[in-house]
């Protein structure tokens, strides 16, 4: 396969996954801001959306005041914010456009249709439709994108690069979500305050893992248990462990000798054979920072090994 084609496929799915995950961040913020007592700073609940998706400085320069409305406009609709849902859907579609001879017709139609619909959206229309309904729609489109790929594509290189993009982006996004409230999460911690509980329940819901949490852990939501689920549990599709399983398997199939495959294997082993209390020995924050760095290094190496040639 052409390196350029692989590059477009990889970014097509990365951007679609990113669009989906931004909706998840937005939903956490929305739920929290409506749950905290109205006497508190509800706008503060929206800060993590900017922290996770990047663009804090850009946002501050342009909007100054942080409010639900300004953050939503910036993270959802702003065409000049490269990480907005709008920009992600556009980029997914642009990349698909460049490889439309390679992907299933339905994949192209789906991404093109999603983009055409998103393009017609503005602030008033979004309010009319409802933020949550919009977020659900984006996720449905993302599910459809993956479903078509899974259901129709030949399992060859094209499929591998599409999935590689999905899982690298997802690993990054899950890690960022975990990092929002990293302070105070440490091995052995038992005391949990109400805010923590509220926060981690919202995080679990946002990655559709609330029920999974009940099934795996039962009982009360504690930060440590939530982190255990989202980092260590390979059975949860959005956990770091699960993402690395996929990334490693795909790279093994693409080229077992490549440097990126070695990096992916090492990152995978770190979690697969690790223990949560060891991984968190310096706290959740440093662990997340290291993970995101390693993930970026891996993505860079994949570019060197396959996409630039």
């Amino acid at each position: 396969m052409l390196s350029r084609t692989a590059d477009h496929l990889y970014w097509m799915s990365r951007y679609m996954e990113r669009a989906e995950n931004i909706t998840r961040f937005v939903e956490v913020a929305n739920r929290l801001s409506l749950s905290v007592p109205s006497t508190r700073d509800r706008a503060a609940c929206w800060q993590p959306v900017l922290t996770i998706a990047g663009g804090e400085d850009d946002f501050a320069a342009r909007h100054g005041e942080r409010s639900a409305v300004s953050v939503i406009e910036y993270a959802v609709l702003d065409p000049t914010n490269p990480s907005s849902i709008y920009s992600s859907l556009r980029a997914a579609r642009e990349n698909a456009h460049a490889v439309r001879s390679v992907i299933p017709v339905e994949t192209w139609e789906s991404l093109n249709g999603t983009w055409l619909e998103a393009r017609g959206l503005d602030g008033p229309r979004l309010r009319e439709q409802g933020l949550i309904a919009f977020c659900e729609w984006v996720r449905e489109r993302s599910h459809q994108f993956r479903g078509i790929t899974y259901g129709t594509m030949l399992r060859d290189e094209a499929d591998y690069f599409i999935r590689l993009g999905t899982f690298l982006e997802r690993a990054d996004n899950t890690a960022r979500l975990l990092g929002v409230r990293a302070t105070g999460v440490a091995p052995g911690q038992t005391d949990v305050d109400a805010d923590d509980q509220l926060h981690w329940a919202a995080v679990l819901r946002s990655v559709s893992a609330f029920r999974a949490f009940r099934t795996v852990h039962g009982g009360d939501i504690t930060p440590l248990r939530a982190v255990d689920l989202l980092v260590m549990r390979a059975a949860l599709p959005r956990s770091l462990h699960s993402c690395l399983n996929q990334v490693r398997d795909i790279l093994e199939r693409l080229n077992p000798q490549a440097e990126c495959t070695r990096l992916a294997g090492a990152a995978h082993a770190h979690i697969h054979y690790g223990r949560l209390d060891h991984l968190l020995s310096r706290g959740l924050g440093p662990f997340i920072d290291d993970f995101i760095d390693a993930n970026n290094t891996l993505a860079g190496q994949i570019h060197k090994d396959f996409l630039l040639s």
Partner: protein
Amino acid sequence: MAFDEMKSADGGVRPAFRAYEDWLLSMPPDLLPRKNEQADALFRRLGITFAVYGDQEGTERLIPFDPIPRILAAREWKRLSDGCCQRVRALNAFLKDLYHDQEIINAGVIPAERVFGNGLYRPEMNGLSVARDVYIHIAGIDVVRTGEDEFFVLEDNLRSPSGVSYMLENRAMMMRLFPDLFTRYSVAAVDSYPDQLLRNLRAVAPAACTGEPTVVVMTPGYYNSAYFEHAFLAEQMGVELVEGRDLFVEDGLVYMRTTQGPKRVDVIYRRIDDDFLDPAAFNPHSSLGVRGLLEAYRSGGVTLANAIGTGVADDKATYIHVPDMVRFYLGEEPILSNVPTWRLEREDERKYVLERLPELVVKEVQGAGGYGMLVGPTSTKAEIEDFRARILANPANYIAQPTLSLSTVPTLVDKGIAPRHVDLRPYVLMGETATLVPGGLTRVALREGSLVVNSSQGGGTKDTWVLENDPC
């Protein structure tokens, strides 16, 4: 009165359209507008669009699709088909001759200055042998009709003619919208085009290719107006769609950059002009091409389709000589006629034309896309005078033709169904022989009275049906 392909002068319906009329009369009156809206939404979702040059927004537009088919009888098609193939065989023979022995010039049939002074003549091709002597792998022959049996060739497109994807997609759309119509008619299928194209391209692999030939489609990129078609053809043939930056030349061979390292490329169906192919040989500012491609081509490392330098044969000044080429190379009489053409470099012809500008069509010799032309009868006095000045400044750059009364076909317009002027572009493929699938791209001038069918100038397209059996 223009010749209408559905209705004869006495108001009767011609045989090929009779079943269509019966069907249409049995349908609710709002059926066509509704189906047309569906088609629009589907084309948009499929992204069958073209980019408009000069549009700052980079907008992608749909080429308007008309839901009423143009129906050609089998016997009409037979003649068109034979005529187009004959023409392309002669043109291909001309290119081979021109770049080798130049017998046609030595015989005095075509003046030397006409070809050697032509900007599209490529001296780099002299003495070069191309695989199977095929220069024109793909040709689009623009044909117009003025009467029952009057067909004229308006233009030969021998560089990289576009539009074949619309022929295929329009048919798919018609089958989707009107399945019941296809049970009333036996319409010849066009789907084999990509297979035939791939077969031909594989058959012209260069001598340096020893194993299974690798074919690619080369596009200027996804901002090109015809990108959809490039992607479509690559997908239909199951070959890679490459850009110049995906290719490189090493030791006289061409490779593409893949995830598994370099891979040899044997045949390039290029949808990019000669000028941009190789910055080392042609336009040095081209970022679309591949450095060293010309040398690789010349040394037999790769086949380009179409060959370099075919433009000299589809020039409007060369066009005049195509009937002579048919006689000279094939020893046959041309089946399809040229439109009578005046060359404005000749004083007597120029005088004649300048006296009759309001009646005539004047075209730039190397113009395309409906740009750089004057349609006398629909132009203002000021436009005509402006053109007169341009002609006088550089007469050799222009030819003139009578304003042909192009045939009309019923077309869906705002006020219902009305006749609109059409042309036809069938696609001839050259491999071991010249072939063409039964059909082509019918372009329709949607504005009332307009004779300009180009999509860049407000033209639309129709599905073109060739009947397998003529109704009695």
